């Protein structure tokens, strides 16, 4: 529920974000916000299966990476622009989610987490050893011809659009029947089953949806980064970070991952600016500990709880 004033504010924030590239800020800021958009897309998508349904996938970076490689191969071998190639990338990621979803979603809790983690490791290793995909040398994509200010702005706007899309999509799901079904699974899957909710069906749908947007984002990211290597796009810390962002903000709400992604990214940025590297990392680690001890269900729940009192 977004109240009137908040709607107004939101409108202006989005408008500001859209116009930002026009004032030609240093491309670093565009890239920084681009990175935040990426994490918003990834963690909001993840949250569909993670926070909403309660199935914590620790291998979600695999879907992102599959998207990156798909559009990279299409570009390198068929000359298809990643802006177009992003769609098949998203579809392929979803297809993979469908295939591994069936067996994996039968597992609960930490077992699901570990099996998805394994899956991500396996994909990373397979790509590293497969010469067609560049193996462990990686893939070099041709750079976009245009001025970097313009190209960064394009990537920024696309990801802005995707972020808005996924956030509204997530909100829509949370409030409709599908989302309520997922919440029921999260609360108590066995009870949900006795209520005649087709849990397998819902779970697999959520999983596929949660893989689609990371696939698309990956497809576009390939062009942004232009040098693709398994260590860069199958990096397990991305997987862990999106889980943390979503849970940090609060998994049961559409706004949780959004807030988590924004806050954690900004904190990371500030820490690296002013504090010696090792201390910055110590504070970063400490932050997780503090939040989980004092706000175990995420910031959003904490804030809502406060208001509820």
């Amino acid at each position, binding site marked *: 529920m977004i109240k009137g004033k908040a709607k107004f504010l939101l409108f202006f924030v989005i408008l500001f974000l859209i116009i930002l590239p026009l004032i030609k800020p240093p491309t670093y800021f565009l890239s920084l916000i681009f990175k935040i958009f990426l994490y918003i897309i990834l963690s909001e998508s993840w949250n569909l299966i993670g926070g909403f349904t309660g199935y914590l996938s620790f291998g979600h970076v695999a879907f992102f990476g599959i998207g990156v490689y798909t559009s990279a191969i299409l570009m390198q071998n068929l000359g298809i622009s990643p802006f177009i190639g992003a769609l098949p990338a998203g579809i392929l990621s979803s297809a993979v989610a469908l295939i591994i979803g069936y067996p994996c979603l039968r597992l609960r809790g930490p077992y699901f987490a570990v099996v998805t983690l394994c899956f991500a490791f396996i994909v990373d290793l397979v790509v590293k050893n497969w010469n067609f995909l560049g193996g462990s040398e990686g893939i070099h994509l041709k750079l976009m011809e245009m001025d970097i200010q313009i190209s960064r702005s394009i990537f920024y706007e696309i990801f802005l659009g995707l972020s808005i899309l996924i956030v509204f999509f997530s909100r829509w799901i949370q409030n409709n029947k599908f989302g309520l079904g997922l919440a029921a699974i999260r609360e108590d899957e066995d009870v949900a089953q006795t209520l005649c909710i087709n849990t397998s069906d819902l779970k697999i749908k959520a999983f596929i949806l949660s893989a689609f947007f990371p696939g698309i984002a990956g497809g576009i990211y390939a062009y942004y980064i232009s040098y693709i290597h398994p260590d*860069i796009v199958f990096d397990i810390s991305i997987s862990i970070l999106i889980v943390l962002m979503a849970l940090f903000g609060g998994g049961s709400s559409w706004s949780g991952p959004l807030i988590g992604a924004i806050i954690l990214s900004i904190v990371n940025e500030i820490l690296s600016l002013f504090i010696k590297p*090792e201390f910055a990392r110590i504070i970063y680690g400490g932050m997780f500990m503090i939040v989980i001890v004092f706000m175990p269900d995420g910031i959003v729940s904490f804030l809502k709880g406060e208001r509820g009192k």
Partner: protein
Amino acid sequence: MRKKLFRKIYGFNILIPLFLIFYSFGLGIGAEKPIVIGGSLPLTGTFSATGKWVERGYQFWAEEINSKGGLLGRPVKLLIYDDKSDAKEAVNLAEKVITVDKVDLLLGGYPGTACTAVMPVAEKHKMVYVSMGGHMKSFSQGYTYSFGGPPLMGEWWYLGFFEWMKTVPPDKRPKKAAIYTMNNPIGMALMDSIYKGCKELGIEIVIDEKYNLPLTTADPMITKAKQMKADLLFANGMFPDGVMTIRACKALDYSPKAIVQGIGSVIPEWTRELGKDGDYIFSGTSWHYKLKYPGNDKLIRVAKERFKEDEPPLYFGFGYAWMQTLQQGVEGAKSLDQTKIRDWLKSNEVRTIAGNFKFDERGLPKPFIYLTQVINGTVELIWPPDMRTHEPVYPKPPWK
């Protein structure tokens, strides 16, 4: 009386101009805007061990040049961010130093994946980027602003070894080679020169396998090499797996005629941690402190006095060498204009502690590599002959 007064005034007259001269001199140095050289290095995370030494190499170069009056008469300031051993962060931070901090010059990162990822950014912003590069592929993308000064080219890594082996009488050369390579860009690049070299020298490759890091045990692979009677072992790995491989060789009593290690045997930890067992291992390198190029003696001294290291660590030297290349580019072009620097670097010779380079249109010097061997706990230079510091020990003596 008059004489005294006259002397006083005369004295003042000397003092005032002198004072003004010194004052404006000091003011001059202080008022000069520093030249900022920026970039990122892995100061925490998996690659921090090496990242730290590159940073020290850069810092030493900066101190030295500032004590001599600076670059183009201006003091130099380094702006080094921590990319947490993440290539994506390195890319972001490169954009930061270029577009926000607006640095005058870029400094090279580590490791190769980070450098390769940053090269396109440097290219798009038309800024010169001197680094170790990311092996041949990274220099074949048509980037004009990137330079390997010196580069770390896996493809050249064993050139020195095979060139030297050509001087060994044919009946004493090894006949069968076992190759174990780590599965990452460095490892892949290393294999290039091995295939070529073995073919030229008629050495049969009996084992050719890759392994993923981290290596949990080297015993099976050494057992295999022993069984196949390979008398030449290529351990294309880094420090941790290199150490494991050597220990396995000793424990399993496998003594080929020569053991060649990828990366790791030229750093002080090798001897410090392995002791005598680390002796007689060959390796390649693009720089060594014993090279007879000017400046190396300085590094040896600083490493000892400041860091208590008997030998300057490899990347300490590399950091310094990369800065030397950049420095000469700037001084040669007499400007901070990146295109002028690039053009100067592509048409003039650069002299560094690692050698004298002329860069081609890819930003690479002619292929070169130094063959090293650890003898009695010290890394000695074996090839090229004019750089030799010790006679090679071949074949490898049995384990003690």
